């Protein structure tokens, strides 16, 4: 697989990040932190007990614009991707959403008795919805996959229902952006509001790439696992 993809195991970790800074997120979700000196991807991953093939698959998938679904990315570790996804959930819920909330509150000059309170309520409702979805994944989907990894084949859930659930959440965020961009009255200095919007946009993109990793990398691997287990049952 290495010859076909842009980033290889022999690349320096620092080069990778300098070339595409959004990969910083990927790195930290795999549990890799900064301070890698001149180590290569493989060396640094091994050192931190991260499956370097899976790491590279996610890195290349995201760098390419996450539009590929095929077996270029072989031999992925399901446990590794799942761990990555779990970390991403906690990043969104525990860090990113609260930090955007603070920025947004400051930017619109939050006050309890005007429209800003409704905007914050709208935002909170949106975050709640995302939280519910992610908790569902943590509780149902990942539990199911953990059972698969132990060699069990639970019959109460099927991974194929999973991917279709993603699109609905996006519409709420689109509404929030529309309200701010099109309909919110302009003030003389918009720096704060722009900064908050900027964060919302990049969060949106991050969420999109997150759900694509789920749909195009994770689910196919899980399906393979299911196939393997059901064949060995026969």
């Amino acid at each position: 697989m290495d010859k076909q993809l842009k980033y290889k195991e022999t690349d320096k970790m620092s080069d990778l990040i300098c070339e595409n800074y959004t990969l910083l997120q990927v790195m930290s979700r795999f549990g890799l932190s900064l301070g890698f000196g001149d180590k290569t991807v493989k060396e640094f991953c091994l050192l931190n007990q991260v499956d370097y093939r899976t790491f590279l698959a996610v890195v290349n998938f995201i760098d390419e614009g996450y539009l590929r679904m095929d077996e270029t990315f072989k031999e992925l570790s399901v446990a590794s991707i799942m761990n990555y996804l779990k970390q991403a959930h906690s990043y969104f819920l525990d860090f990113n959403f609260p930090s955007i909330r603070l920025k947004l509150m400051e930017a619109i000059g939050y006050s309890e008795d005007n429209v800003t309170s409704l905007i914050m309520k709208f935002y909170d409702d949106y975050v709640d919805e995302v939280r519910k979805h992610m908790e569902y994944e943590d509780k149902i989907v990942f539990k199911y996959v953990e059972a698969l990894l132990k060699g069990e084949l639970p019959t109460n859930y099927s991974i194929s229902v999973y991917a279709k659930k993603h699109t609905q959440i996006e519409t709420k965020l689109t509404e929030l952006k529309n309200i701010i961009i099109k309909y919110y009255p302009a003030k003389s200095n918009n720096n704060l509001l722009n900064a908050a919007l900027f964060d919302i946009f990049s969060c949106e993109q991050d969420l999109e790439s997150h759900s694509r990793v789920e749909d195009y990398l994770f689910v196919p691997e899980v399906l393979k696992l299911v196939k393997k287990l059901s064949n060995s049952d026969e």
Partner: protein
Amino acid sequence: MSNITLKIVVAENSVIIRNGITATLKRLPDLRIQPIEVHSIESLKECVRMDNINIVIVNPAFGGYFDVAKFKTETLATSKVVALVSFFVDKITLSKYDDTISIYDDQETLYGKINSLQNLPKKKNEEDDEMLSGREKEIVICVVKGMTNKEIADNLFISVHTVITHRRNIAKKLQIHSPAGLTIYAIVNNLIEISEVKKNLV
């Protein structure tokens, strides 16, 4: 820019053609396209089963020979299947596809084909129509006050069906669908006082 995303799978073995198609699709005006590249028949089937795919663009020689009928029955896909032609393909084979795209098609042709495959409305010149009509504003106010479609209909002496049509048009114009979003819109645009909505909340 349309607010619907079209999911288009590109099934083609040549990496140059595949990436070329994806790049071209992304540059088409008015459409928001999410391309997905696959290069094996298994991935293609998996992808179509898993997601609601609008269009599959496939090389007729994909996986040796691409059997459209078999593919459709096997995956129960509702997607349109379009042949991607880069060499001579006989008419009988092509007749099994919903349409044909040649690698020599220009952007406009490609745009036209995708539009007609999806029955998308022709380019509209109603940009100014984003403003709500008086009636629509009245309906926004009712929705924001928490009235049901039936109540709105009775209140304005129109049918429930008309209310629903108005609400659909409002959502399309503003790109706001939820009552919570409409509430913010209504207050910011002075259609209603915040004190009038507060009591409906929480």
